[in-house]
Structure formats: C-alpha cells, structure tokens
C-alpha cells in the first residue's frame, strides 16, 4: 500500500520523503479549506499598508493647518484643539423622502456651514485678512477631507478584521487606488491653500478676470463681482467670484439677477468652468457645448436652469479639461494658457450666436483663490 502511494507521487520511500509528501498534502488541504481566509488576510495586509499612508496624509493635513493658522492668524492661544474639533465637523443633508424644494433646503444647510466655518476660522486666526480667512477655510477643508478618507478606510479595515469577511474588506481594497489618488490630490491642495496659490478649478474665474480687468466691478451677489464689458460690439456682463481669496461665490444668484434686471433680454449666456477630463485627454483642452457648466452639488446649476428656462435664454458651455488632482492643486501652465484659448472661443460664440448691440452673460465659474480681477 505504502509503495503504491509512494509511486503515485514519484517519491523515494525514505522517512524524510514521506514527511515532505505529507507536508505538501497538508498544504493542499489548508489551501482548500482556508484559501478564502488567507486571501482575506492578504487583502487586510494590503489595506493595512494603505491605511498607514492615509494616516500619514491626515496627520500632515492637520499639522499644516495648525502651523498655517499660527503663522497667518497669530492667535493668542494654541489652535490645536479647535482644529481637531473642526476636522470632525459634518454637514448633514436635508431629508430626501419628500424631494420638493430640496435645493433650497440644501442651500440653507451649506450657507449655515459656510458661516459657521468662517466664524471658526476668524476665531482661530484673528489677525487673518478676509482673503486669508477664505484660504484658511480651503485649507481646513482639504485637511478635513484627508481625515474623512482615513476614517473611511479605517472603518472598512476594522470591520473587515472583526468579521473576517472577504466581501467587507474587498469593498475598500478594490477602491483603494482611486481613494489614494483622491487623497493625494487633497494633499497637494494643502500647499496651494497654505500659500494662496491659484488652483486648477479657478480656470473659469481666470477667464472672467482677464476679460473684466480694466472695467469697473460691482458686487452683484454673495462673493460675486460683475463688470460690464464691451466685447465684439455686444455688452457682456462678465462675472466671477471675488478674489484673490479662495471662494466660489454664488454665481447662480448673480446670473439670475442679471437676467431678471434686464427683463430676460439676454441673447446668450456663456458659462466657463473647469471640467473633469477623461483619462487620455490632455490637461487644458478646451471644449464647447450647451447647458449650465457649473460643478459642485448642483444648487447654482438649478437656479440658472430655472431662470434661463423662464426667459428662454440660450446657454453655452466652455469647459477647460483637467482631473481632480489638477483641479485642487496649484494651477498648471496648460490651464493658464487654456484661459486665452477659452477667451477666443467665447468671442467666436458671441460673433456667431448673437447680433451687434445684444447683451450677453459670461460667467467664469470656480474657486478664485490666487486670482484677482
């Protein structure tokens, strides 16, 4: 019998040979019954390694936020405890079961959030100017995002470890490369916000800034400035968020107000914004389209949609392509150069789509940090 089994494995009949055979058989049985568990351990180890990276990034965000607040705001007391409290802030969306009027409810929540954060920042950094308060708000936002990424991964890691469920840990393991990419983008946003440098998201604001520079500006909505600019024989109402502090303003309110104050006599509204590029597309590529090119949660887009529909104003979009990393980190040269290309496109759209003497709206959307007007 032993000899037959031995022949089956092509082995010598020595004791050591048998030990070897049995070990391999044992290994086979272990893999058969515990294969999934071993796979789970492996995944946990991978997530564990990434979790440490997420923690390092979160700690870096916190450290940069504290040091910048100390440097810019010159507070009397140590702001560490306040920063730690801020990093745990949450904004809870309104109930969605009855969706009627949800945008107004959501806008209210975000307004309260914005006011609260600004108050906190002013308290933490009493010496900061208004532009610096806006930049610090951006900085704390990036640090908060890094904390959320860390806690999200930690949640699934801990849950996976507790349950040893392959499917729990797989959820986060599969998403890790994308989460890591987004976290790294927020890490680069820290630098830009610390120094008040323009970010890729401000591409639309840069276009508007270049168009309105030599003309008188008025504040038309919360944190939004507007200038009446003669362009290609038409009157262009050019608007952007008020810089150079980091904020996006309320362009939806501004566009609505301009259209209503002109009795709906707007020949065209052209909205310029940074847009998500597909992988393989070039950064700074300028494309055109129709519709309201305003990113974010959708409140401003909703307001503009309502108004342009009411007054039948044609809406055109000029989009400057970039990915998330480019959008929240310091502006790349390709994006700066794309602003001039976008201006040429706007002029062509105006020439081709409107008549001389018409009024048009040109809205430069995006975070205007590091961009004046």
């Amino acid at each position: 019998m032993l000899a037959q089994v031995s022949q089956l494995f092509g082995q010598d009949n020595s004791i050591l040979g048998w030990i070897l055979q049995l070990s391999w058989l044992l290994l086979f049985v272990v893999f058969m019954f515990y294969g999934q568990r071993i796979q789970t351990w492996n995944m946990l180890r991978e997530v564990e390694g990434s979790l440490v990276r997420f923690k390092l990034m979160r700690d870096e965000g916190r450290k940069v936020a504290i040091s910048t607040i100390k440097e810019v705001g010159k507070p009397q007391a140590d702001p560490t405890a306040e920063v730690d409290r801020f990093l745990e802030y949450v904004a809870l969306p309104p109930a969605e079961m009855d969706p009627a009027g949800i945008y107004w409810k959501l806008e209210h929540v975000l307004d309260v959030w914005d006011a609260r954060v600004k108050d906190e920042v002013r308290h933490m950094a009493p010496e900061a100017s208004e532009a610096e308060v806006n930049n610090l708000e951006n900085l704390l936002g990036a640090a908060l995002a890094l904390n959320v990424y860390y806690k999200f991964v930690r949640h699934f890691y801990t849950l996976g470890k507790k349950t040893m469920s392959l499917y729990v840990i797989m959820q986060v393991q599969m998403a890790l490369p994308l989460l890591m990419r987004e976290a790294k983008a927020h890490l680069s946003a820290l630098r830009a916000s610390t120094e008040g440098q323009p970010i890729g998201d401000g591409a639309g604001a840069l276009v508007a800034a270049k168009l309105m520079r030599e003309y008188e500006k008025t504040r038309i909505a919360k944190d939004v400035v507007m200038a009446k600019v003669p362009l290609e024989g038409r009157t262009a109402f050019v608007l952007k968020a008020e810089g150079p502090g980091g904020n996006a303003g309320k362009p939806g309110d501004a566009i609505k107000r301009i259209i209503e104050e002109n009795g709906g006599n707007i020949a065209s509204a052209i909205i310029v914004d940074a847009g998500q590029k597909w992988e393989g597309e070039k950064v700074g590529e300028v494309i055109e389209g129709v519709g309201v090119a305003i990113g974010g949660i959708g409140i401003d887009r909703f307001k503009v949609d309502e108004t342009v529909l009411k007054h039948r104003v044609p809406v055109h979009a000029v989009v400057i392509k970039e990915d998330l990393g480019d959008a929240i980190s310091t502006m790349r040269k390709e994006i700066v150069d794309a602003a001039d290309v976008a201006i040429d496109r706007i002029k062509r759209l105006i020439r081709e789509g409107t008549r001389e003497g018409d009024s048009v709206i040109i809205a430069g959307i995006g975070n205007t940090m590091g961009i004046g007007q």
Partner: protein
Amino acid sequence: MSEETPTVARTNSFMVAIIFIAFALSFFALYQAMVAYVNQNPESGNSLLIMSLTGFALSTYFMLQAQRGAPKLILKPQRVATTILCEKCGFKNVREFQRGDYILKETENCPKCDERMLITSIHREVEKSESED
C-alpha cells in the same frame, strides 16, 4: 479628534514560522531531488525539484511581504513660478512664487520703462511623468 488607530504589526511570529517551515521544506526537497538524480531516478528528481522551487518562491514572497517596512510620506518640493509682465514695453520676469502674489496683481515697477508691472501667471512646474497623464 477621536483616535482608535489599529496598531499595525509589521511582522508576526506566525508568519515567521510559516516562512521558516517553507524554507526548510524547500531546502529538503532540493536535497532529495539531488539524491534522486544521483540515484538515476529523474522522475522523482523532477517532481521534487518543482516542489522545491515552488516552496522557495512562496517563502520568498511571504518573506518580502513580512519585511515590507512602514510606509513613509514623501512630499516632493514643488516649484511654483510667478510671471510678471510689463504691458507697456513687454518686459517679462519669471521668479519664484512669493506669498501674497496673485494673478492680475500690480507689482513692482518695470526696470525698463518704470511702468507698474502685472502678475499674468502663477503656475506650478510639472514633472515629466505627471505631464504625461
């Protein structure tokens, strides 16, 4: 800030034991393979050699996994350039970004025509690997 970070053990004794056993078995299988070849038994020799190589591959893989050091966060320094332009004479100056710079800010006077110059661009220099994205 609530803190309950899972403590990450980079190597554990169970892993070390597995690696040690796998290595020992692989060495032994290699020895047995050599004995089989010397005894003119190539059939056994081949299967033992395959076992040995598989064992070495597995144990090396686990060893590398166990030896993986704690990750570090390396922040590469980023160069941000500010371009200042004199709109009157076209004089252009590119310098390192300084805190307080912003696009369309009027800065120092032009060294050529003494006109106020304007910051026309602030951008980061992108590494080649990043620019290929």
